[in-house]
């Protein structure tokens, strides 16, 4: 997550991060809710009909943000997993575990909305072209990460194995992104890229970016909430958690 500017090492202890995450969570959740309302309003009432695809193109306002998040979350997850393996910081592994379910959710949504968009526009729910296939592999990577972690009883080994999978799997992300350039695909190229002007009307682009921001804030809120559970679970024998539980009584 974009916590740039925060001194990571100070907060990399689960005991200090737990209350901090608890304080930040509601703000991100609130932002996510507000942005979702604005984004949905723009997507349906402000953004005009598309000249070619009519109203069906409105699926784009969740399809593209979900697909972006699915790739972005995976990269962040792999970075945390790598940090966990290299520096042996407990919190990084917990962050990676907390990111995976939401990443899998956005991957599923990208595939689902893609199928519902492909059927009326392309004429098919699914094709085995490079873009669709690599996105499906991304879903399997998320599922593999989560099941590997759940399947191994020893938590340290579980973290190491799933972390390695996350790191190896990261090669898939650039392949997804560039698949539409490297191979002939049914999927169209990117409308938004760094080296050219967006091939999309400004208001459509704005709606899509607001929805992306909403998903982003949702992800942060969700991950903060989940990492708190993760911390309590893995640190349940530590003094501060025991003391916290005493307090709660």
């Amino acid at each position, binding site marked *: 997550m974009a916590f740039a500017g925060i001194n990571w090492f100070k907060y990399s202890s689960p005991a200090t991060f737990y209350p901090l995450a608890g304080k930040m969570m509601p703000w991100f959740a609130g932002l996510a809710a507000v942005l979702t309302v604005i984004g949905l309003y723009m997507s349906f009432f402000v953004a005009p009909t598309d000249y070619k*695809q009519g109203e*069906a193109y409105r699926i784009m306002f969740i399809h593209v943000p979900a697909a972006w998040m699915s790739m972005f979350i995976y990269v962040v997850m792999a970075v945390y997993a790598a940090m966990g393996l290299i520096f042996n910081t407990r919190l990084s592994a917990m962050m990676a575990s907390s990111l995976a379910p939401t990443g899998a959710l956005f991957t599923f949504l990208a595939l689902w909305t893609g199928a519902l968009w492909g059927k009326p*526009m392309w*004429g098919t729910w699914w094709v085995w072209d490079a873009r669709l296939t690599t996105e499906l592999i991304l879903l399997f990577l998320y599922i593999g990460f989560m099941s*590997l972690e759940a399947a191994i009883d020893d938590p340290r080994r579980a973290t*190491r194995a799933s972390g390695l999978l996350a790191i*190896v799997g990261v090669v*898939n992300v650039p392949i997804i992104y560039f698949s539409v350039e490297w191979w*002939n695909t049914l999927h169209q190229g990117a409308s938004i890229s760094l080296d050219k002007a967006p091939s*999309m009307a400004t208001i459509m682009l704005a709606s899509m970016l607001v929805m992306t921001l909403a998903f982003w804030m949702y992800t942060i809120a969700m991950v903060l909430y989940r990492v708190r559970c993760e911390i309590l679970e893995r640190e349940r024998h530590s003094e501060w958690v025991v003391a916290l539980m005493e307090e709660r009584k």
Partner: protein
Amino acid sequence: MLFIVAGVTGIGIAATLILNAFNSNMVFFFSPSQVVAKEAPQERSFRLGGLVTEGSVEREDDGLTVHFTVTDNQHTIPVVFTGILPDLFREGEGVVAQGRLGDDGVFHAEEVLAKHDETYMPPEVAEALEKAEKAKQSSNSDIQNAPAGAGGSI
């Protein structure tokens, strides 16, 4: 530890195999030029991709059989298809047809998919662009077959 190493190695091998498969098989479609150059499979079914040539679409009386040609502005392949076309199937737009090439040189399609580009805009803007394109074309009439302002790319 051995278990982990084995697992990761397995994943690595799987990934390599998948990537390899992509490089040899993930040519989702062949362009008319590739078909003319005999790069496309002769005996089995393959996908033909390109643009539907302007003015080439003809429907038979049964209302289901359609004749059109697919072009990449270099070569053109005639296609015949019986069935329901996707909503975005239009002249001048991208198309990917699955089928096989007959001895008559006609591509007999079993499935036709529309391929659209990444351009999105309101109809008024598209209209204005088209008008501007037309004005430009009539002023330099020596430039023939200039691509339409929006769309048309594959």
